[in-house]
């Protein structure tokens, strides 16, 4: 029989298997989607309803009259955190012994590690895309035109992969799915120590300092620039750079820890 065990074929098979696992647990997708949509609706409901169409000079003119544009980046960032499932998927396989079974077969260990990353990436794209779609329906309208949606999605993707890498590293290090799950608590400082609900100028004291060191700040600001203000290339660049550096760092950690996990004890 003809035999094909190339790396790409193995990666494809393992990814497909993991997609099946995700599809079989659709409810697991809901919490993160709901939280992300929650930002969109609650913020717009709370402020947009009251101050909708605010002229400049009011406390809310940072939104330039469209609160959806202002808050959509936060929702998208929140949706992109779904990438953190990668670590949970991987650790589930370690805990169940599936990982060991694969190791006892002639399968590339990188294919074993990359498959959950692939699925994490898909998840980021789908969840972010879905939130974006909801945003469009309820009136998001980027200042730079429709290409703004693509820019927002691309930053979200890089950011989400950063979280995927982070969760893989944390999961493998802790060796338990609780460990990987706990890693997702990074969500709270990431979102709440950032200019999430008001622009950075409006933050005061230690919160302002914390936000300045939080890469999420620059990611949100870049998306917001595109949505609310127009082409501000330096802000955009800072956003891509923050997301890119974060992803590079966590993916390196993921590779290092995964290499250790697949070594023989």
């Amino acid at each position, binding site marked *: 029989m003809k035999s094909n065990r190339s790396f790409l074929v193995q990666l494809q098979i*393992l990814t497909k*298997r993991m997609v099946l696992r995700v599809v079989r*647990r659709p409810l697991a997708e809901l919490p993160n989607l709901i939280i992300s949509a929650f930002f969109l609706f609650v913020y717009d409901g709370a402020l947009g309803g009251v101050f909708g169409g605010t002229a400049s000079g009011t406390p809310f003119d940072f939104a330039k009259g469209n609160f959806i544009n202002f808050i959509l980046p936060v929702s998208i960032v929140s949706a992109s955190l779904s990438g953190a499932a990668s670590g949970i998927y991987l650790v589930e396989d370690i805990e169940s012994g*599936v990982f060991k079974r694969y190791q006892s077969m*002639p399968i590339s260990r990188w294919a074993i590690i990359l498959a959950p990353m692939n699925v994490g990436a898909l998840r980021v794209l789908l969840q972010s895309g879905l939130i974006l779609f909801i945003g469009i329906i309820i009136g998001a309208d980027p200042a730079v035109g429709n290409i703004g949606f693509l820019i927002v999605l691309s930053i979200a993707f890089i950011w989400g992969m950063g979280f995927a890498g982070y969760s893989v590293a944390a999961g493998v290090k802790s060796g338990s799915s609780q460990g990987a799950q706990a890693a997702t608590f990074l969500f709270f400082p990431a979102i709440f120590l950032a200019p999430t609900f008001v622009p950075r100028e409006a933050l005061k004291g230690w919160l302002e300092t914390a936000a300045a060191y939080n890469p999420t700040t620059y990611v949100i600001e870049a998306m917001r620039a595109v949505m609310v203000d127009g082409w501000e290339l330096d802000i955009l660049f800072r956003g891509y750079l923050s997301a890119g550096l974060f992803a590079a760092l966590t993916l390196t950690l993921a590779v290092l820890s995964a290499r250790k996990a697949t070594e023989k004890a």
Partner: protein
Amino acid sequence: MLAVDVKNIKKTFVSKQDYVEAVKDVSFQVKQGEIFGLLGPNGAGKSTTILMLTTLLSITEGSASILGLDVSSKDKEVREKIGVALQDTGIDNLLTGRELFFTTCRLWGYSNKDSEKRTTELLELVGLMEAADRRVKTYSGGMKRRLDLGLSLVHSPEILFLDEPTTGLDPGSRRVLWDEIKRLRDNGVTIILTTQYLEEADELADRIAIIDEGLVVAEGTSDELKAGIGGDVITFAFENNNDLENAKNILKNTVQEKNELRITVEDGASKIPGYLKDLGSNGVEVSSVSANKPTLDDVFLEVTGYRLEGSEDITNEEEKRKR
């Protein structure tokens, strides 16, 4: 060529907190086409041994080869030849049996078409055709073990490692697996299995190594091991402790278990009257006495100094079932 040749392997786990000699010195040889049983209690080092032989753990000292291939230096080649069903079954509960077989076939390199064919063959072989399209989550323990066995057979390995394939199964499911394992052996597959059950080793294994605290303490066919005890086992039971203690001094070389003393001698039945006379003249009351051919149970007791717990499980379960 030997199927498996293990020479004085050793495994120590070193961490900051502790230093565990999981396997101290294990050697054995397995011929092609036989079932070899590693019999030992929990914690004896069976799984660690299997993990080393299947390239999943490094060997601290000593060496092992499979079909002449060194396990440490030729791990890739070794993995091609072996099938492995580990103790903690790595089974994906969310997929169906058919999907698991198909995925595993694809991973071994079969094309889509060949994978479908092989999946059907294997589902038939392990008797899971009817449950093929159900999620594994819904499978019984026995079905999961059979699935696990089937998955380890995808690439038609020459050598199969099964770590406690029937632990925790009811007697019926255990029998089904035993039959399957024997059938594989009859088709030329060499099988190395571990077990905590004396009956399983006795029934399945062509040869047995008893492993205790990381050491092989006895090795041979079941008959050889029993014959090695030399003669028959005489069991004396006592009603009070004084009698037992006195008898211990009089009889010498006995092994005590609860209120019983055992002694192994040639031609046991003919020696009973002599012993009883000795005991009686010293005022020791014996409540019952019997002579039996040694069982694997006796062999285990003899070589380790204790009885294998859980060895009665099967009989108990079987009795429960009869009721």
